[in-house]
């Protein structure tokens, strides 16, 4: 039994039958992490090696591994199961948590030097829900600093590598979570998505990743980047696992005012109903220029598959979608400029001493934030300042309203929408690091649904050659989008598609990843 290659549901059924214990599953994952993630496997909480000490074949998905706590929790679940207790569907299954969600017992860094030394005094609502369900958190995953980026290269603690090709990025900002699931370092992970930060890395790493309807999963304990857009969601190796994980973490939270008060969608009942008779829209504006030919080819094939399953494919227009990217890159930095103001050296995290409070604030922020975070704080501060507010923030908000309306109109005609998740396959480490605009273009297909608040996910659709290395086949994701609070429809389409694709989430990376590649043959 290769425990680190099984899906969560396979693990769960083996746990239920007693074939294997949660402790064995957790230990298998910890062993694999110790072998190939570049951690110092010592003490209760293993820390990642510093960026300079990481090896070229270390995935570096984790920033911290809560080894002792994970083993303890696994033992507890095993004991409860042995005692005949009724346990949740994913009890005893391990998971990787993005380091932007708070969890007691380990630092939360958000990929930033700014939070150095901060031990969160409380669990995020998502974290608490996972504990409650008996899901075992293995550790905290790497990310672009404060979730700002599309490659995880903006982490202050070194790059995470894509398990499909260790010289390439995993996408971002939830790159650590995506790489953990792709690389056999966790069967499940939690990420957060503001403009595509779950979907794009899922696409680039060949795994399933979903952004639920805004407000479906509580944001309490999710360190805010852009509050009106941030949403936590699942990563998994298949659609059913992702749906099962979302079902665990979704639901109204009185601690989050923006949490949807209605009952969360039932993701289970219609999951396997197929797409026969469904109308699925292809978004005219989310293809063409800027999309790699390989990506377009896989997307065309995906449409054929959906049609072959009985879905009616129609072209629809989201007229204002082309303005989504500029609107997003005003709204998100505006909110970020305010959200990140609290990192001032006064109460927690980094403090660089200086003679006055004001100088201490400035010195701390200069030292604590990386260049991309500073860039966005400056953009956002400018967009909100008087004299510019109307032209930038307000105008962007209007565009946002128009995009939401476009989606609502489109869903009058179709049940779901599809597009490529990302215009490209995984690109090389460092390739776009110095070109922010090129980096921002990664989000072109994912930001419209973010602005509309609607659910959207990425499901593996096939492989395409890397433009810079045609021999290298890399994963391509299909983005499935659905109306507000119809996450059930989104999962149903994605599940049906997955059955037809025959995609095996098996990265073909070198040495340490060899174990994952056997199944491809």
């Amino acid at each position: 039994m290769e425990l680190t290659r099984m899906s969560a549901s396979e693990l769960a059924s083996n746990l239920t039958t007693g074939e294997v214990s949660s402790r064995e599953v957790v230990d298998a994952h910890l062993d694999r992490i110790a072998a190939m993630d570049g951690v110092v496997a010592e003490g209760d909480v293993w820390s990642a090696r510093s960026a300079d000490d990481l090896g070229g074949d270390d995935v570096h998905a984790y920033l911290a591994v809560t080894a002792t706590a994970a083993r303890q929790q696994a033992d507890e679940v095993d004991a409860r199961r042995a005692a005949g207790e009724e346990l949740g569907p994913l009890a005893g299954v391990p998971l990787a948590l993005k380091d932007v969600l708070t969890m007691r017992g380990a630092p939360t860094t958000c990929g930033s030097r700014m939070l150095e030394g901060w031990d969160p005094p409380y669990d995020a609502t998502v974290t608490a829900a996972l504990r409650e369900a008996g899901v075992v958190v293995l550790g905290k995953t790497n990310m672009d600093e404060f979730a700002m980026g599309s490659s995880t290269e903006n982490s202050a603690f070194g790059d995470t590598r894509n398990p499909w090709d260790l010289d390439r990025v995993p996408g971002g900002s939830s790159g650590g979570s995506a790489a953990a699931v792709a690389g056999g370092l966790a069967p499940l992970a939690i990420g957060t998505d503001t403009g595509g930060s779950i979907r794009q890395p899922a696409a680039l790493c060949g795994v399933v990743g979903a952004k639920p309807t805004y407000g479906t999963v509580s944001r309490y304990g999710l360190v805010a980047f852009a509050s009106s857009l941030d949403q936590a969601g699942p990563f998994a190796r298949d659609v059913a696992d992702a749906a099962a994980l979302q079902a665990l973490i979704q639901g109204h939270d009185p601690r989050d005012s923006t949490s949807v008060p209605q009952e969360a969608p039932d993701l289970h009942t219609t999951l396997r109903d197929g797409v026969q008779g469904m109308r699925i829209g292809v978004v005219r504006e989310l293809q063409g220029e800027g999309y790699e030919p390989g990506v377009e080819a896989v997307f065309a094939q995906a449409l054929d598959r959906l049609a072959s399953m009985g879905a009616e494919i129609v072209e629809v227009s989201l007229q204002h979608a082309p303005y989504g990217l500029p609107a997003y890159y005003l709204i998100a930095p505006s909110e970020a400029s305010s959200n990140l103001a609290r990192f001032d050296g006064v109460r927690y995290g980094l403090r660089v001493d200086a003679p006055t409070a004001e100088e201490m604030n400035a010195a701390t922020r200069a030292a604590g934030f990386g260049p991309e975070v500073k860039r966005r704080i400056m953009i956002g501060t400018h967009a909100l300042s008087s004299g510019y507010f109307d032209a930038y923030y307000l105008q962007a908000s209007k565009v946002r309203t128009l995009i939401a309306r476009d989606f609502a109109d489109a869903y009058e005609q179709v049940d779901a929408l599809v597009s490529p998740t990302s215009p490209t396959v995984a690109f090389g480490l460092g390739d776009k690091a110095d070109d922010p605009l090129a980096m921002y273009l990664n989000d072109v297909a994912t930001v419209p649904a973010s602005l509309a608040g609607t659910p959207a996910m990425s499901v593996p659709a096939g492989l395409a050659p890397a433009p810079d290395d045609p021999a290298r086949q890399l994963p391509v994701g299909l983005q499935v989008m659905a109306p507000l609070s119809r996450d059930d429809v989104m999962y149903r389409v994605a599940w049906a598609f997955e059955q037809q694709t025959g995609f095996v989430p098996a990265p073909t990376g070198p040495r340490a990843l060899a174990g994952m590649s056997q199944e491809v043959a």
Partner: protein
Amino acid sequence: MSESLLPDGWELVVGLEVHVELQTNTKMWCGCSTEFGDEPNTNVCPVCTGQPGALPVANEQAIEDATLLGLALNGGVAEVCRFHRKNYFYPDLAKNYQISQYDVPLIHDGHLDVEVATSSGRGGQAGPDGALETRRVRIERLHMEEDTGKSLHVGDTGRLHGADRSLIDYNRCGIPLLEVVSRPDIHDPETAQAYLRELQGIVRATGVSDARMEEGSIRCDANVSVRRHGEELGTRTEIKNLNSVRSLGRAVRFEARRQVEVLEDGGTIRLETRHWDESKGVTETLRVKESVTDYRYFPDPDLVEVVSPPAKVEAIRARVPELPAAARTRLREQGVPAEQAAAVVGTGALPTFDAAVAAGADPVAAGNWLAGDVAGQLTAAELDLDDSGFTGDHLAELLGLIDDGTLSTKLAKQVLAGVIQARGAKGPAEVADEQGLKQVSDEGELRAIVDQVVADNEGTVEDIRGGNDKAIGALVGQVMKATKGQADPRKTNELLREAIDR
């Protein structure tokens, strides 16, 4: 007096910004206690200390309280409004933004009518002594926000500048705050003071706050400018650190004169924030507003809209209690003199007054006692009426004992002191009994004492018989001495006359 406040031709223009801390059980965005005076940083949590990832949830009670006060101030309630973020860096502001309101406040366009002696005012014409004139001050808006923490600067002056280090107490951070912004309708210090006092009274009447300036649960900033009659509004200064109604009056007076002096000397007034120094009696520059601070307001994405449907507003309107102005009128109609009526209402003694009257007390006497001796003794004992244990029933009982001749006024004051000393655990009758404070009006007992005094003072008696009526005072004194002051003076006189004329 204000007719001499400014030289001829000058007019004072004042607008007040009053912050009211709402006394909800919990803070505006979290479940922490709002208790005043607890150990520093004990009423705190991830939300009010701005921990990463924590989120605010609006306190419904605070919104209702704010609506109640807004309605009491004759304001309109926004059917839909929302919270904005006011962005600025300051160490006692945990998130480095204050959640406030911006373009649409919860309450708009109210007003407050204040009573001012007619002798004060811009015209300067003195009216009949003591006559009251009603002046309307329009209220632009009431908006909701959150309080900041408190900084304590250690070393040097006790102010931030030059301090060795600063400590911050976040207990106050996130306490619901309501900012009441008046229009610049105030033209003399007396009206400013009357407005603040009246607002304090309304806040207390609605029960949304105890409005104690000394504890900071109500705070006032004054925007002051001067202009020559008929001219455009002058540049204003904002005066902070006004710790009492009295300092408001003093500061406005000082600042108005200062501005006129500067202008008459050919200078200009800078747009600035000035600090009132209570001991020096002057305002001093705190910070110059070189440009308008850019707070980069934008809608707080963590919070949803506040919706106040008409039905909800009307239900809250039905809870608006009798306000101080109406209460004063009612007391005057019951015969209480205006000044005493104002004192009873202003000191929060109205419930006690009403209870006493309900228990059978004469309104005039009740008003007189509450405004006079009760207030005086409480002040001397440094007690609030509410904490003193002295109730309306006690007052009615006390007045009853005076009426039936059991107590003289003098004795009644001693009994009152006893009741207050016992914090109300003993009523007036019980105190009088215990301390033997009872008028000797029993004829037999008193007659015996009178006869003895007459017998012992033959000379004086002869004097009186000889026509020196005044000398009877000495005999009354003797009787009082013999009864330890408890003889009924009227009765004593009567019996002495009888004995002398016999």
